[in-house]
Structure formats: structure tokens, C-alpha cells
């Protein structure tokens, strides 16, 4: 979610605008096992999913409020056999729908059905440029299948949009990744540096690249762009750990984004369920309007009343909203602190120390041998959270 949906407003807004951007995480089921997944590590505890009728009602209620961008994500949304039905209703309502997929399950009959249901756009993920690395990083054998799906997406006249999440183990392959994108005829490539939530947070010691790796990747990208003769557009999502100011995460919680988790929990960001002390409502119990405008879960981090110093008196608070609440919570234990990416934060050393620990040769393992890469799977989720009250 790199491109801002609208220009950020200059002032905190007492009356929130509509939830312009709706993200439906239709399921946590996924055939891939990516170690950088941002889904919660305890997802195996909540395997319940809304039924088709609930998703349809959410679409109608959100659209009535003014929602217009629709992300269909997960997990792998194609594991839902009612995806076509959901897309058809979204299209009828006037959403611009975007399927965010691993490609697994995107057979020609399903793609044909999705096209005729009115799906606007598909974003296909790859994990790396080679079969070996793609299949290692996703812990599956999916590279050849993804390549076939890429061809199919073009055949059905969709823009070919590739997303590759970058981290320590693949960021040195940026040139190969971009060449692969050219071979696949990509129109857009998003090189998204890992954001450290969920499984990625658990695996941060293994995934955070060194500064030298990031700088090399940026140089490679620059050179590639200069020599590019095809009309392929490349977006590079900067890794925020290497910045001095935080990202304006979600344009501020409760400003434009509404995520619905598989079980119907409504969240101001797909990672927000981790934030302690906040009750997030469920669309099974309340209407979308009530959830968006009246619930504590959505109102708490609106405006700037919740901010502490240095954010509260900071002239930049209207631009970055203090950064990411989840990152503040994960790293400092208090979601109301400044995002420690900001070098004005008293906790900024937590970021610089993590970056310093990454300053080892690119392919050497983490300093602590007891930090294996943990792939996202039901089994690992259950191992990490053996009882029901895990966070």
C-alpha cells in the first residue's frame, strides 16, 4: 500500500471522511508459507471466516459510505470459492477491485469468470527471480506456476502487475528480479521492502538487510531505470528502518482505510489487531457506518489527542501522524509513542541497533544461531501459540 489514496490533509480532522479504501482479508488460508508475511503469527487460532452474505453486506454498507477502492486479499483470496460472487457484487456497486494474489489457484476458468464478473485489476506476487529462491522463500514449488499465471493475466488483457517483497535474502537480486519482470511483460513492478509485522517481525533478524545491501539495490534500480527502453514502471517502497522520519502509515489510523479480517473484525489497518487495550468491532455485530464513525477502535487514534511528545508538539505531525502505531507498540511497548523510525523519538536507538545487527556479511546467518527462519504455517502458528491466549 505504497501509493497514497489522496493527498494527506494538513490538519487533524475532527469529523472523519469516508472509508475510501476497503481491504477485505477474505481468508488466512494460504498455499504459500512466506517468512515475511504480515498476517498475525497466531492466525491459526482464528480460522473462522465470514460467509458470502456477510461479505456482500459489508461491500454494500461500505460503498454507501463512499468506499471506492477495494482490495481482495488474505491469505490467498482464491481459496474462497465465492470470490467471483464477491467480485461481481463489488463491480455492480461501483468499486474498483484489485485482487492481491500469489497466483496459486488462478486457473483459466477462474480468471475468465473473474474477468466477466468485472474484476478491475490483479497484483501477482513473486518471491524472487529464480525458481530456487522463489520456492525456498515461499516454502512451496510455485515459481513455474506463477510464471504461467503471469502469462494468463496478460492474455486476459489485465495490466501485468508484479509485487516482490524485498529483504536480506533477495534484495541482492533486484536486477534479476527486474529482468524477470521484463521477460514476463510486466507493466508495473512493485519492489516492496519488508515491513516488520506478523511473521516478518518474528523473522526480523533474518530478514532485515544491511544498509550496504539497500544502497546497492537503489543504485541497481537507478541504473536499470536509466537503461530501460520498455514502458515498465517500477515502484520501490523504501525500507523505513533506514529512514529518519516515519511513514505516514495509513494516512493516520481511521482516516481512509478499513480492513475486515477473515473473522469479520474491523480494523483501521491490517496489523492493528495487535494494539492492546482497543476493542475492534466485528461486522457480525455492528453496521459498517457505526463501526467507522462511532467505535472506540476507530476513533482512538484519530486526530492528535492521543499523541505523546515528541509528536504532540511536532510541526511534522500533520504530515506523518507520528508514523505507525503498530511499529511503536511492537518496538516500545506503547502504541502512543512516536514511531521509533523517527530520529526525534527517544526510542530511535531500537531501530539503529536493529540496523547495526544487520551489518554482517549479506549471506551469513544471524548472530544468534537460535534464530531460525520460521515459515508461516498452521503448524508453526500453533507452535508459537500453544494456548488460546497468545497475542
Amino acid at each position, binding site marked *: *500500500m*505504497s*501509493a*497514497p*489514496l*489522496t493527498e494527506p490533509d494538513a490538519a487533524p480532522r475532527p469529523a472523519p471522511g*469516508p472509508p*475510501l479504501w476497503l481491504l477485505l482479508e477474505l481468508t488466512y488460508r494460504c498455499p504459500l508459507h512466506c517468512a515475511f508475511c504480515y498476517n498475525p503469527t497466531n492466525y491459526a487460532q482464528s480460522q473462522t471466516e465470514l460467509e458470502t452474505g456477510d461479505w456482500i453486506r459489508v461491500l454494500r454498507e461500505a460503498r454507501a*459510505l*463512499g468506499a*471506492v*477502492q477495494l*482490495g481482495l486479499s488474505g491469505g490467498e483470496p482464491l481459496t474462497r470459492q465465492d470470490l467471483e460472487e464477491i467480485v461481481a457484487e463489488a463491480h455492480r456497486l*461501483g468499486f*474498483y477491485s*484489485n485482487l492481491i494474489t500469489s497466483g496459486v489457484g488462478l486457473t483459466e476458468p477462474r480468471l475468465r469468470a473473474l474477468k466477466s464478473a468485472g474484476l*478491475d*485489476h490483479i*497484483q501477482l506476487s513473486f518471491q524472487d527471480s529464480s525458481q530456487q529462491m522463489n520456492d525456498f522463500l515461499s516454502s512451496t514449488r510455485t515459481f513455474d506456476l506463477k510464471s504461467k499465471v503471469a502469462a494468463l493475466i496478460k492474455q486476459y*488483457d*489485465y*495490466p501485468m*502487475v508484479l509485487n516482490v517483497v524485498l529483504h536480506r535474502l533477495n534484495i541482492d537480486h533486484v536486477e534479476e528480479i527486474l529482468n524477470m519482470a521484463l521477460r514476463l511483460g510486466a*507493466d*508495473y513492478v512493485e519492489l516492496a521492502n519488508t515491513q516488520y509485522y506478523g511473521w516478518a517481525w518474528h523473522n526480523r533478524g533474518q530478514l532485515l538487510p544491511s544498509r550496504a545491501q539497500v544502497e546497492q539495490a537503489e543504485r541497481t534500480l537507478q541504473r536499470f531505470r536509466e537503461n530501460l527502453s520498455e514502458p515498465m*514502471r517500477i515502484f520501490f517502497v523504501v525500507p523505513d528502518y533506514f529512514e529518519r522520519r516515519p511513514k505516514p502509515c495509513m494516512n493516520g489510523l481511521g482516516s481512509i482505510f478499513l480492513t475486515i479480517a477473515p473473522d469479520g473484525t474491523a480494523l483501521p489497518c491490517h496489523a492493528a489487531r495487535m494494539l492492546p487495550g482497543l476493542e475492534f468491532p466485528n461486522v457480525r455485530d455492528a453496521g459498517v457506518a457505526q463501526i467507522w464513525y462511532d467505535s472506540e477502535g476507530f476513533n482512538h487514534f484519530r486526530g492528535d489527542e492521543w499523541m505523546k511528545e515528541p509528536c504532540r508538539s511536532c510541526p511534522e505531525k500533520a504530515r506523518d501522524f507520528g508514523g505507525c502505531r503498530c511499529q511503536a507498540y511492537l518496538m516500545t511497548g506503547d502504541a502512543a509513542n512516536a514511531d521509533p523510525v523517527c530520529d526525534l523519538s527517544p526510542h530511535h536507538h531500537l531501530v539503529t541497533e536493529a540496523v547495526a545487527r544487520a551489518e554482517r556479511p549479506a549471506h551469513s546467518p544471524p548472530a544468534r544461531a537460535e534464530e531460525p527462519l520460521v515459515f508461516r504455517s498452521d503448524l508453526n502458528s500453533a507452535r508459537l501459540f500453544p494456548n488460546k491466549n497468545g497475542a
Partner: protein
Amino acid sequence: MNDSGISPDSRPAIMRGFRLQWEPAQNAQVLLFPEGMIKLNGSAGEIMKRCDGERTIAEITADLERAFATTGLHDDVVRFVAMAVDKKWLRIPP
């Protein structure tokens, strides 16, 4: 033909993968694209909704001048279309 590559005979069209639609909640024409949205002001919306790949710049201009009972819009239309082509919201089919 000026240096933006746009002539009175150009037939601008919305870029593939983009969609223009009227949004009552925002009281505006918006241009939708993957993970983004541009809210257009009144005149931009009026120009954009005529960019259907069929009508030429000259026809779009004439239609706007008729609809708003005015004249001399040609340069404004070309300026907007050039900007929108530059931003890849519009394309000029060959």
C-alpha cells in the same frame, strides 16, 4: 502538433486499467487505478469524461464550449490533456 505531441486530431483515451466514475460521496469525478484515486476538479472531470478514444481534441473542445456556452477553451483542453498524458492517466492511441 505542439511539443507535447497533442494535436487537434488526437483522440485521448483513459489509460488501460484506469476507470473514471462519478462519486456522489465526493461530489466529483474520480479517476481510479490500482491502490489509488485522483479526485478531479470540475473542469478536469468535464474534459476527462469526454476522453473516450473516439472524439478528437477539436471535438472535445467544441463540445465543452457548447455545453458551457463559452469559447476559447482549446488551450486549456490541450494543457490538461498534456498533463494527464504525462501522468499516464490518459494515452493518445496511435
